[in-house]
């Protein structure tokens, strides 16, 4: 009987061990994107995280090889749209051995859980990660109510 937390933990560790050894059998191309594995429809769209920090949303999106000019961000109400296109970088005179990276052009939209203030959106691009900071509109910001 698994009664203690330690037992459960040990069980999970065994499962992880098993998973790692299964990963070892699989060829590399199966492991390139664990999050979207088995979701071919999502290939070519950047993986995105959204965090809620109370007063604002933070967005992180994986956009390797995109420059500032290649990307566009649109915001309206609680709607966020990311789009971009990356051109192929294959220089002249090279023969190709292997092409795995997408020459992708994507559009991805999100409905955020709250309205955002379009004037207070900050975007930065660093090491192939797009970071957005989207301040919520005044009505959507949680407020502390003093008990009288």
């Amino acid at each position, binding site marked *: 009987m698994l009664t203690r937390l330690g037992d459960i933990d040990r069980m999970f560790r065994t499962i992880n061990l098993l998973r790692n050894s299964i990963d070892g059998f699989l060829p590399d191309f199966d492991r390139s994107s664990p999050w979207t594995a088995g979701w071919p429809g999502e290939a070519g769209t950047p*993986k995105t995280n959204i965090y809620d920090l109370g007063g604002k949303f933070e967005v992180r999106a994986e956009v390797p090889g995109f420059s500032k000019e290649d990307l566009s961000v649109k915001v309206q109400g609680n709607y966020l749209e990311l789009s971009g296109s990356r051109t192929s970088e294959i220089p002249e005179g090279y023969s190709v051995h292997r092409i795995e990276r997408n020459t992708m052009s994507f559009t991805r939209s999100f409905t955020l859980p709250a309205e955002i203030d379009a004037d207070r959106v900050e975007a930065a691009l660093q090491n192939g990660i797009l970071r957005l900071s989207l301040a919520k509109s005044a009505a959507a910001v949680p407020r502390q109510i003093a008990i009288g």
Partner: protein
Amino acid sequence: MSETTAVMKKEDTPLKPTLQLRSVAPEVDILENEDEILLYADLPGVTREDLTINIDNGKLTLTGIRKLKAEGAAVWEELGDVEYHRVFSVPQSIDTANISAELRDGVLRLHLAKSVGAKPKKIEIKTA
């Protein structure tokens, strides 16, 4: 009549984190011309300090760690902290002393120059 009870001592070791960093193979493009082999790898979020490239005994190993340093409650999550890891076999014709790498916008460009002896040469035919 004596009663024996099996006593099994439980070891109370502190819990260790179960999940290590997920190891992921980065997507690469490999191109070649007469002078060099050119490798592109997508490593979004990896900084120069967290990327190591080793070449040893004909094996080129790329290892990069990405830490997102996220805060707040995740509303939607598709990417996490990962370890990018991939090993390539490098032909002997590569001059290992002459490899250059640059990392920009999350893309690694690795130039592996061929050694002089491996470059194609045109043979002149002498007329008798």
